[in-house]
C-alpha cells in the first residue's frame, strides 16, 4: 500500500500566525491549493480555507484587516508522511475535512488532499485488478493443461482408478 509521502503536495502556501487576512486571501486567489496553512516555527497551528474567507466576506464586518488567526480553523488535524492511504481515508471519514497538512518531526513537509488520496487508491486498485486478471487467466490455462495431461497419463499412474 502506498503512503502519503508519495502523493502529498510539497509546495504548500504558508503564512505566519500574525499574518494579515488580506495576504491569506491573495495567496488563496493565486494558488490552486485551496487553502493556506498557518505556521508557527514551521509547525502548522491552523488552516484557512476558501470557505473561511467566504464566511468572513459574508459576515457583518467584511473588511479584511484583522490577523489571519481570527478566521483560521485551529487546531488542525495532521497526517504523517508514513500514514498508509487506507488509514488516511479512515481519518478523512471520521474528521470530514478535505485538506490535511503533513507533519514530520513537528515540521510541515507537505499537504494531503482528499482528491489525491481517493485518486491514488483508485489507480492502485486498477493496477491491482489487471494483475489479478492476468494471474486468473494463467491459472485457468494451467488447470486446462493439467486436465489434458491427466487424461493422457492416468492409466499409468500407480494408484490406477
Amino acid at each position: 500500500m502506498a503512503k502519503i509521502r508519495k502523493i502529498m503536495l510539497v509546495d504548500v502556501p504558508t503564512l505566519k500566525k500574525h499574518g494579515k487576512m488580506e495576504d491569506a486571501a491573495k495567496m488563496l486567489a493565486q494558488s490552486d491549493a485551496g487553502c493556506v496553512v498557518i505556521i508557527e516555527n514551521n509547525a502548522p497551528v491552523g488552516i484557512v480555507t476558501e470557505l473561511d474567507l467566504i464566511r468572513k466576506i459574508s459576515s457583518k464586518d467584511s473588511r479584511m484587516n484583522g490577523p489571519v488567526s481570527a478566521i483560521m480553523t485551529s487546531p488542525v488535524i495532521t497526517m504523517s508522511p508514513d500514514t498508509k492511504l487506507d488509514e488516511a481515508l479512515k481519518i478523512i471519514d471520521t474528521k470530514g475535512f478535505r485538506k490535511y497538512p503533513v507533519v514530520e518531526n513537528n515540521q510541515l513537509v507537505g499537504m494531503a488532499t482528499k482528491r489525491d488520496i481517493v485518486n491514488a487508491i483508485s489507480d492502485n486498485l486498477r493496477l491491482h485488478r489487471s494483475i489479478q486478471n492476468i494471474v486468473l487467466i494463467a491459472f485457468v490455462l494451467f488447470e486446462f493443461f493439467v486436465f489434458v495431461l491427466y487424461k493422457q497419463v492416468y492409466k499409468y499412474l500407480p494408484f490406477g482408478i
Partner: protein
Amino acid sequence: MLKVANVMTKNVVTIDRAATLVKCAKLMASKSVSSLVVTDKRMPLAVIRENDVINGIISKKARVIDAMSREFLIVPPSANFQEVTKALREKKIKKFLVVEKGKLLGLLTETDIIEATRDFTRLHQIMQEIILAVFGLATAFFLFYFSPLKVAVFG
C-alpha cells in the same frame, strides 16, 4: 457505464449575473456550497467558485459578472463519467454544467466526482472478490472431481 446524470448535484443554487459578490458569498455560506451557477434570465451562463469570489473581492470588483470564471465545460446528462474524469485530470477543469436543450439539469463538481470515484472503486473491489471466490470454488471442485480422492470417498 456510469452516466453523468447519476452522480451530478441536482439542486443547483443559482445567482443572477447582476448580483453583488457579497450577496454571492452570503448565498455560498448559507447554502454551504462551493460554487454557484450564474444565470442570465434563467439561462445558465457561467460558474462562480469560492476562489473567484475571493479573487474578485481582492481586485475590488463588485459584481458577479466581473468575477465569474469561464473555465467550465457543458456536458449532456448522458455523457460518460470516465470521460469527465479524464477532462478533470488532464485539462484541470473543475466544474461541469449538465445542460440538456438549454435547460440546466445539474452541476458536477469535484466533490461529486471524488465521491463517485470512491463508490466506483468500492463496487469494483466487491466484484473482484466475488469473481475470485467463484474461481476458487470452481478450482477446488475441479481438483476434487478429477482426483483419486473422489473415487476414494464416493467409490
